């Protein structure tokens, strides 16, 4: 149901334009419209260029961003894109990411407000990565690339400015994590021996997609020894099998990012995506007694885990309910035998994958790596 009345509008004194010559970077800081870093002050020309990249129609409402439920019109989106330092070419990616985040399945309301540290991780697939110059290689989670940095930053600015997820106010995260500034990567499809993630999920390689997961930071997995899939994947299983990550106690979805060297070693043995995900699921997990602290703080059932899990002391409790809950990517630099495990927030959220242009994947069965799905 559409809201019936306007309950909150910006106050006139907040919007009073400052005298010519005002330091606008400081003005935006003073108004609280920043993530803590200096913003790029929007100008009419910059906002117009961004709007044009979004298809015009400044008053068109794209979505409402919780928990404040501010209206993300194209003009508001354009303003935040400029503030973040984006180029107009990035605008469709950010728009698609916000539509994914505001999908009911993602439960952005909860993600924004939780005491957990989760931040939306964006992974981009398809030709758009190259077109806009995203980094999928060295230091992929780190600094140094404008597209990765400012796309992620634009998302965060919108979650703050429009969604109202200000720390201590509507964002109650106890610790947060650095991905709450920017958390955006591209899959390294060129160096990957596996099918791209979006192709595994039914899109054509020529389509470009965004994948959003409410996620903890990446946990490094080092293995400079193994020359077979099992050895590498056992190291990832070890990183997954703690009782402290949120998947361990709250189920849900997680991500695994294989470094290209690890991916090549695994693929050389003929393993495909589904083999990798199945192995990771099968050989990670915890014993229920460990999750229940041997019941020394009282009898524990854990309502956040699926009802069908056995809860005997030595029952194996998977990190996530099935191999399909492990989202597998290949990213990072060519050299280095590292991968990463990225826990999710839990069953309270579902990741969302969507095409940047809003199109759907091919109808009916699709086949990847010799396996077909309907």
């Amino acid at each position, binding site marked *: 149901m559409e809201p019936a009345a306007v309950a909150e509008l910006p106050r006139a004194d907040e919007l009073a334009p400052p005298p010519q010559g005002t330091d*606008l970077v400081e003005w935006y800081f003073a108004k609280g419209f920043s993530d803590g870093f200096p913003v790029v002050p929007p100008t009419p020309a910059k*906002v117009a260029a961004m709007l044009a990249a979004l298809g015009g129609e400044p008053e068109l409402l794209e979505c409402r961003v919780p928990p404040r439920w501010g209206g993300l019109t194209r003009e508001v989106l354009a303003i935040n894109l400029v503030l973040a330092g984006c180029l107009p070419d990035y605008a469709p990616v950010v728009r698609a990411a916000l539509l994914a985040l505001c999908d009911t399945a993602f439960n952005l309301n909860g993600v924004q407000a939780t*005491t957990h540290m989760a931040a939306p991780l964006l992974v981009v697939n398809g030709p758009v990565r190259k077109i806009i110059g995203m980094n999928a290689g060295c230091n992929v989670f780190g600094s140094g690339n404008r597209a990765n940095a400012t796309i992620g930053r634009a998302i965060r600015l919108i979650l703050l400015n429009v969604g109202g997820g200000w720390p201590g106010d509507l964002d109650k995260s106890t610790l947060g994590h650095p991905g709450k500034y920017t958390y955006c990567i591209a899959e390294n499809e060129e160096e990957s021996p596996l099918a791209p993630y979006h192709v595994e999920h039914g899109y054509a390689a020529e389509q470009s997609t965004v994948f959003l997961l409410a996620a903890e930071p990446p946990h490094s997995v080092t293995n400079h020894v193994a020359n077979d899939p099992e050895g590498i994947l056992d190291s990832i299983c070890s990183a997954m099998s703690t009782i402290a990550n949120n998947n361990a106690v709250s189920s849900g979805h997680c991500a695994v990012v294989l470094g290209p060297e690890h991916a090549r070693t695994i693929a050389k043995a003929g393993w495909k995506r589904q083999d990798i995900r199945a192995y990771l699921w099968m050989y990670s997990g915890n014993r229920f007694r460990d999750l229940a602290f041997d019941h020394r703080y009282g009898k524990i059932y854990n309502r956040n885990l699926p009802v069908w899990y056995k809860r005997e002391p030595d029952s194996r409790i998977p990190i996530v309910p099935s191999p399909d809950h492990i989202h597998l990517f290949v990213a990072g630099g060519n050299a280095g035998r590292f991968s990463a495990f990225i826990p999710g927030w839990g069953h309270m959220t579902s990741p969302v994958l969507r095409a940047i242009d809003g199109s759907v994947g091919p109808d009916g069965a699709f086949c990847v790596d010799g396996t077909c799905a309907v």
Partner: protein
Amino acid sequence: MAKTTTGGVEAVYDPRGRVDAAAAAIAPRARQLKGLRLAVLDNTKWNANKLLRQSLKRLDEEIGFAAVNYYRKESFSKVAAPELVGEIAANNDLLLTAIGD
């Protein structure tokens, strides 16, 4: 959202977007509790049921409700389903809930 540059001022923009919402009235406060029907909404947080059942026991001993109905949300992180809210509203006079993290 934009402000113009006319009159010797800088162009600035409001990045927040408008909030459209309808005001809703709060239910009137109950004048007395004895003999009313109490709903307890467990949000399924770690310790919510423990906190709520203890609170409920003591409240019921002290007050004496006509009925106590216990409900659970599907997820602590999501709003209660409209059907559940409707059922609670239709069959109860009071609601007790807590986070219990």
